[in-house]
Each structure stands twice: as structure tokens, then as C-alpha cells.
């Protein structure tokens, strides 16, 4: 069995018992259907659209018309529908079950949000149509900004970042611009070991050198450690708070102070904002920049990997460096400031532009719908419930599972390590796969990297007590089974999913990244 450095197995063991005894002629299993690729089932002549013949065949393509086929198969509409419906049925989703993926905040995605985003007045407007025809859209952006500023206690917000990592880039560029304006050439960014990969990647992407800060015994960062690492070359610290171990950084205020005293800035990764909305204002902790994942905290759907939206709130010190575009009041109306010249005329010094247009408007509508629906009271309650749920899971499992940093309250997610599996022969990955058979999506595993065999559980506020209780009972049953030596239940898992364990090593060693006619045929013959 191959393993990576976090102890995560990458190649499945050979299967000794079939997941499911009954074999079928079609390969289908009742309601679960095997589905070919469109490249195998479609044809170049088939189409699922009816379009009129163009009125004229005259071309003005400068001689650059395509010659020969593209090779794109089509399917008629009924075939397309069935293909994607069947494929969808092979996914787990929040709507189908508890999705305790730590750091991802898989909360309920209200359908009202979807409906609002599809109002023609929001969904069917062009980013470059005349501004007097999109005043409602600009108003929505302003209202969203006002909510975000009120919730974070910050000074300004840049709406255009397209996801969390893009937000990190935005915040760090603002910091860079501020240093630059001050004539400083600092080149180091402090990042705690437990940080998400996007933090060091963002810093490096901008040419910064990453200096790692170790965590304390209790999973948090000591102000002393930060102070020690600070120096005239340090541009910023990127600190996640609540951190990726599910803990609120108790010395965050001292850390902020130390950072500021050293002439650096405090970038806060706000991925875990869901723990503290309406409870704590990051601005009051000394944060200079923080991204907010609207696709986590504010319920815009993950969509199988995106789109997200990562607005960045900025402190007084950084506000003027916010990128274009941004919305300003202009007489009776609102106006987008789209270029540096215009921005400078407004007294701003934008560090530049992050994307072609104004950000993820579709996500803004959804997030604002969420905020208006919850209201101040609902958002506070949501955070409290999220924290309550995580601690409930923690309390109910603490006797069987191992908490890496001792028995202390957590925020909205609870972290376990794999010590409780010691000598059972069951790994964190095995444990995760066994959860699949029981109808659960596994928690985040092997992250954060600071603990061995990490299991990071974030139930969110969207689960009922019954749901949490069944989840707890199942995890207990699994833990007991592992301790009892029922190793097969784990090693063979998943048996009941559409696929058993997939060979990731093979995928990486012999990459097949697209369909190829020959390969596919050869395989079919195998």
C-alpha cells in the first residue's frame, strides 16, 4: 500500500470480498446506472438544439475558417438529460446528507437564493451595459458591502475576488501596495504550519518568501512565537482565525499588536468566519485584510468545486489600495470606478485589477439573500448553532476518539487525530471510506497537516439534533468496530458506493486527462 507523508494511503488494497454480491448483465444495479462518456455515446451529427439555417453564407473571416471536424459529439435532448441526471446520481451532496467537510462549511443552500440570482434584472444584465441601466445591481453591491462591513467592523471591501484564494491574493496585494507606497521592500510572510495550502501558495505567487510559524501544544499560535519571527523584512502574517484546528486564536489581539508594531500587516484567512458571524468583529481584533468565502459562510452553493466568491474587507490602512472596479455614490445614483485614473481622482491608489469584470455578481445576490433572510439575529444564531453542533459532536466522541490538543471547546469544527486508531490497522482514510458505506460523506482528512491522520469535522448549523445523533452513533459504531478488530469493514470500504476505491497512483503515473478514441476502444476490448 502506497502512503503519502501524512499517512494517507494512495493505492487501494486488493479486494477480497465483493461489495455487492448480485451481478447484472447491464452492469447497472437497480437505480444506479453505468454511464458511458459522451464521446462514446454521442455523434458528430447529433444535436440537442434546433437552429435555423443562417440567412447568408457570406463569410468575413479573413480566410481563417476552420477546416475539418472539431470532433465534438452531440446528443439529443433526451439523451443529454438522462446522461447528466444519471451522472448526478453518483454524487453525494448537502441536499442528500450530512457533509461534515471541515474548513468547507457545507451548510444548507437555500433555493430562494437561486431564484433571486435568476431574476432577469440580476442574471440577464451585461457587465458593460450603460451604468444608468444597472443601478439596481450597483445598489445590491453596495448593500452587500454594507452588510460585510458591519459584520467585520472593517473599513472597505473589495468585491471582485472570485474565490477565497483570489481574495488572499487581493488582500496580500493591498498589503504589498501599502508597503510599496511607504517605500518598504519587505519580502517575508509569516504563515503558521496549520495554514491552508492557499496561504503559502498565495504568498509565494507574489514572490514572497514564506516563513513558517509553529503551533503550540494547544494548537494555537503564541504571540511570543510571532514576535520572535517578526523583523524588518516581514511584510505580513497570514493567520487563519478561527484556525484550521477549529480553535479561536486566544492571543490574536496581541499578535495583531506585535505585527503592527513591527510595521507589518495582519492578513486573516476568513474561511472559518462561520464560527463568529455576529459574535466577533475581525476588525476589532486588529485584522488589516480578510477574505470572506461567500460560498462557505454565506451559503452560495459549492457546485462541485465552484464558483465561489471571495470579497476582501480592508482596514483603514489598506482601504485606499483596493483594486478596481468599485462602486461609488455619484449624485443621485451609483457609479462603477473602473480604471486607475478614475480611482485616483477619488483619492484611491488601487493596486490594479484582479479580473475582467466586477466579481461574482451571481454569488453576491445569493449571499445577500441569505443575509437578508437570516437578519442579524439569524446570523448570530447560525454561528452559535454551528459552534454548538461541533462541540456536541466533540463531547459525544471524546471518549472514543483522540483530540490532538486536549479536551477543550472548539469553534465550528472539531479536530481529531488518528491516535485512537493506533494498532487497529485502520487508517484515517479507511475510516473515511467506511463512513461512505454508512451514507456519510467523510470529514476532511489529513488536513491540517500539523496533526497525524487528521479528521476535521464541521457539521455546520444546518443539521438537526437527530441528524447529529445518528452521525455520532455511526462514528462511535465505527470506532468500536475498529478497536474490536473488524478491519474488513474498513479495508474493503466503500462497498456500497457507485465505485470502490479508485487507484490514484495509477491516475497520476499514467495520466489520462481526456478521452482519446484509441485508448478507449482498446480498453473496451480488454
Amino acid at each position: 500500500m502506497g502512503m503519502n507523508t501524512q499517512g494517507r494511503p494512495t493505492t487501494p488494497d486488493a479486494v477480497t470480498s465483493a461489495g455487492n454480491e448480485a451481478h447484472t448483465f447491464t452492469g447497472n444495479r437497480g437505480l444506479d446506472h453505468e454511464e458511458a462518456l459522451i464521446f462514446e455515446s454521442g455523434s458528430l451529427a447529433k444535436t440537442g438544439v434546433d437552429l435555423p439555417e443562417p440567412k447568408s453564407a457570406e463569410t468575413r473571416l479573413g480566410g481563417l475558417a476552420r477546416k475539418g471536424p472539431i470532433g465534438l459529439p452531440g446528443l439529443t435532448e433526451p439523451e443529454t438529460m438522462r446522461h447528466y441526471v444519471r451522472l448526478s446520481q453518483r454524487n453525494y451532496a448537502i441536499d442528500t446528507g450530512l457533509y461534515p467537510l471541515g474548513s468547507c462549511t457545507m451548510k444548507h443552500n437555500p433555493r430562494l437564493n437561486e431564484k433571486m440570482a435568476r431574476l432577469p434584472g440580476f442574471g440577464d444584465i451585461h457587465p458593460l451595459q450603460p451604468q444608468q441601466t444597472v443601478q439596481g445591481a450597483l445598489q445590491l453591491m453596495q448593500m452587500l458591502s454594507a452588510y460585510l462591513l458591519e459584520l467585520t467592523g472593517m473599513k472597505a471591501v473589495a468585491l471582485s475576488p472570485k474565490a477565497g484564494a483570489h481574495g488572499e491574493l487581493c488582500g496580500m496585494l493591498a498589503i504589498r501596495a501599502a508597503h510599496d507606497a511607504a517605500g518598504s521592500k519587505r519580502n517575508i510572510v509569516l504563515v503558521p504550519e496549520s495554514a491552508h495550502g492557499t496561504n503559502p501558495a498565495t504568498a509565494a505567487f507574489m514572490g514572497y518568501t514564506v516563513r513558517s510559524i509553529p503551533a503550540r501544544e494547544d494548537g494555537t499560535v503564541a504571540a511570543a512565537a510571532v514576535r520572535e519571527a517578526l523583523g524588518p523584512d516581514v511584510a505580513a502574517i497570514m493567520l487563519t482565525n478561527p484556525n484550521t484546528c477549529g480553535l479561536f486564536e486566544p492571543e490574536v489581539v496581541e499578535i495583531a499588536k506585535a505585527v503592527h508594531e513591527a510595521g507589518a500587516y495582519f492578513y486573516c484567512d476568513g474561511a472559518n468566519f462561520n464560527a463568529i458571524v455576529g459574535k466577533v468583529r475581525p476588525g476589532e481584533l486588529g485584522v488589516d485584510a480578510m477574505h470572506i468565502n461567500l460560498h462557505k459562510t454565506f451559503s452560495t452553493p459549492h457546485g462541485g468545486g465552484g464558483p465561489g466568491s471571495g470579497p476582501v474587507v480592508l482596514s483603514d490602512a489598506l482601504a485606499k489600495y483596493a483594486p478596481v472596479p468599485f462602486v461609488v455614490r455619484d449624485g443621485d445614483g451609483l457609479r462603477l470606478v473602473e480604471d486607475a485614473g478614475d480611482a485616483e481622482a477619488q483619492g484611491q491608489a488601487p493596486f490594479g485589477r484582479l479580473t475582467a469584470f466586477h466579481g461574482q455578481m451571481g454569488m453576491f445576490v445569493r449571499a445577500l439573500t441569505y443575509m437578508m433572510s437570516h437578519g442579524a439575529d439569524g446570523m448570530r444564531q447560525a454561528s452559535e448553532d454551528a459552534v454548538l453542533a461541533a462541540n456536541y459532536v466533540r463531547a459525544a466522541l471524546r471518549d472514543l476518539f483522540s483530540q490532538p490538543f486536549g479536551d477543550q471547546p472548539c469553534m465550528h469544527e472539531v479536530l481529531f487525530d488518528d491516535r485512537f486508531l493506533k494498532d487497529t490497522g485502520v487508517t484515517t482514510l479507511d475510516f473515511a471510506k467506511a463512513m461512505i458505506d454508512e451514507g456519510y460523506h467523510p470529514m476532511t482528512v489529513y488536513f491540517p497537516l500539523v496533526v497525524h491522520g487528521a479528521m476535521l469535522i464541521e457539521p455546520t448549523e444546518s443539521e438537526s439534533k437527530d441528524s447529529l445523533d445518528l452521525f455520532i452513533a455511526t462514528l462511535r459504531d465505527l470506532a468500536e468496530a475498529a478497536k474490536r478488530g473488524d478491519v474488513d469493514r474498513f479495508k474493503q470500504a466503500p462497498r456500497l458506493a457507485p465505485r470502490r476505491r479508485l487507484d490514484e497512483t495509477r491516475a497520476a503515473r499514467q495520466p489520462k486527462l481526456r478521452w482519446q478514441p484509441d485508448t478507449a476502444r482498446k480498453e473496451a476490448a480488454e
Partner: protein
Amino acid sequence: MRYLPLEQAEREAMLARIGVPAVDSLFAGVPADKLLKELPNLPRTKGELEVERELSNMAARNVAAGSVPFFVGAGAYRHHVPATVDHLIQRSEFLTAYTPYQPEISQGTLQTLFEFQTQVALLTGMEVANASMYDGSTACGEAVLMAHRLTRRKKAVVSGGLHPHYRSVVETLSHWGGSHVVALAPDPTGTEDIISQIDDETSCVVVQYPSVFGTVRDLAPIAEAAHAKGALLVAVVTEIVSLGLLKPPGEMGADIVAAEGQSIGNGLNFGGPYVGLFATREKFVRQMPGRIAGETVDAEGRRGYVLTLSTREQHIRREKATSNICTNSGLCALAFTIHMTLLGEAGLTRLARINHANAVSLADALAKIGGVEVVTPAYFNEFTIRIPGDAQKTIDALARKGVMGGVPVSRLASGRGEVRDLIIVASTEINTDEDRAAYVKALQEVL
């Protein structure tokens, strides 16, 4: 609150089980003086009816593209998206899933990503594609950085036909990342001399195809010149439908294609979410940013898909990653794939021909107006006109007459006097003869 399942009595029972007296005990890590008691400045819970009413009123203050003759493009295009697409992407199993970290229960997302990657590769004429970027502009920025990594050089030569906002994104990343950009002047006609700018320090040439002005020109000579100097050609496409009719960049020697995929499957959405397409040569794949789905087998030997080559990515490689991207544009990629599957070769090529025919007929009609000149020699569904007057003012006047006439170049490239009288005009399959007639009539009136 309708989204919160816990009842008060349950909350209390849970607190008891945890062994704390109140929920704020769980916030003990927070400095006591920082814990808020309330949020006085925000409204309280609202029901659906009330929220819907407020937001609908806001939406009604915007003029929906579908309600007027509409000719705005310049990087985002209004196409007809079949009802099936929007229905399918709203299925719970697609909409509310996370990134497919657990492949055994994510085959739906993974197989569609594999289909997406193949479609993008075929369409662009490239060997491989990733599972999406945020949008075309960030894909373009990443393409330049990838070219820098591949060539170990730091200079990008950027065509004057590149969308000015894309150029700004490249410039922003370059400026703060320590590399250089040589950007050429706006080039509506596609006649700039970009080849002479390529030197031994050039990592890549960035050319948009069709250009932001709509102009189509052959990339092969540029690719050749770049390759001769050890540089790469980054081709940028903002109107992906054009590749239904035009020779793909891959056939003309492009090394990286960065494109905006919004036109297929995705609505205008005031600029986002959109979907960045990113394709390259197989040999460059380990420098490619973003997620990639790959084929493999499961423990019973059945074909299946996983995320792969993740040693390029931030969650494995951290500061050594090819990019910091994590969440991408999955659902928009799904919409792209479904729409493209519905179209197929037959539908896409016809759609492209209709777009072209509509643009040609609009260009001819506009060119007949006194003083109006079509400056784009060859184009797909978008072209640039020169008018006798100020473009921004004209567009605003047209809007007051209920016609959305295009994008004044000055809005994109402000401060450049020479473009003050240029308008970028797009025409897709949504435009009828009546729409075109309305445009001509309104333009005659306002000029």
C-alpha cells in the same frame, strides 16, 4: 429561523451534554471584550415573501438584456441557453456537492469534468485542458505566469487587441510578481507589428483571437516568430463560440489557450460567475495551474475518475504550487459541458455560422449610415465601428432609446483619445431582423 433546525430545548440538551452552561462558554477563547452582544445596525430575520419583494424591486431597477435590442459584447455575450442546462445544474447532487475529494461518491462531478476537459481540448485544438479557472481574464493571467515558469523568463509581450481589462489583470500580477509586460497600443484592425517586439527575453506573446475589437487574424506567423525566440504563444479567446467556425489556436501553434467559456451554458450575470478555460500542450501539463480530472480504475477494475496530478497544487505543494487556485468554476464548467453536449459539432458549427451571418448583416446595415465606418476587416460576431461623435455619449443616448448598442472603447481604455469614437458591437443568434432595424433607426436618430 427557517434554515436552523435546532430547537431551543435541543440546544439546551446539547449544552448539557457538552457540559457548559451557555453557548458563550464555547467562545471562551475570544477575548471577553471582543464578544459582541448583538448586531444593532442590521435588520432582523425576514420571510421569503419579504426578501423576494425587496430584491425584486432592486432587480427591476436594471434593464434586462432580454428586454431590449441588445448588442453588447467585449468579453461577455448573450446567447440562448437551452432550458435543460439550467435545470440540470440546479440538481441538488451537482449544485450542493463540494470539490470531488472523495471520488467514490463524486463520480458525477468527476466524469463531467473529464468530459469538459476533453471538449475544451478539442475546441481549442490543444492536447490537454484543466478543470476550469475563475474566468477568462484570470486564466490569461495564469497563462502568462505559466509561460514565465516554463521559459524561466519574465517578459510578456501583449497585443493591443487584448481586452484592456485582461491586460490590466496581467499587468497587476506582473507588476507585483516582479515580471514585465510590454503592452502594444489599441489595435482595432489587427495590423500592429507584434513580431518585432519579441526578443530573447520574451517568455510569451499574448494575442486575443478574435481580438477585443472583433478582429480575426492569423496567429501562425506570431507563433512561429515566438517559437524562434524560445517564447510561447498564449492565445486568448473571449468568445468561445467563434471556435465553431474559426481555425483553432492549437492549429496555429498556440502553446497555451486561455479562454472565457461564458458564452456556452452561462448567462451574463453582470460579469460573473463565468468559467475560465485553460488548455495547453501535454508536455507542459505539470506546470499547468488548477485542478485536473483523470481516468483510472477502482478496486474491482471498473473505470472511474479522480482528481489527479495534485502535486502541482497548493493543498499538496503549498508555496511550491503552480498556482494558489483552489475553488474554481465547477458548476459553470458543468453548464458549459451540458450545453456543448446539446450542441455537439453540428449545433455548434451552425450556431457559429448564425452568429457570423448576424454580425455581417448588422455591419452592413450600420455601414450604410452616413459617417459610420466599420473598421474591423475580418471578424466573427463582433466588430468595431467608428462614429462621427463621442462613443460613450452615443451609447448612453441609444440606451435612453431602449437600444443597447455596444461598448464604447473609451470605457475600456480610458485616457486614450484616439479611441473616443469607437464602439465595439456584437451580434449573436438572439438578435432578430427587428432588433437590427431598431439599432439602425436609433443610431441614425442620435447621431
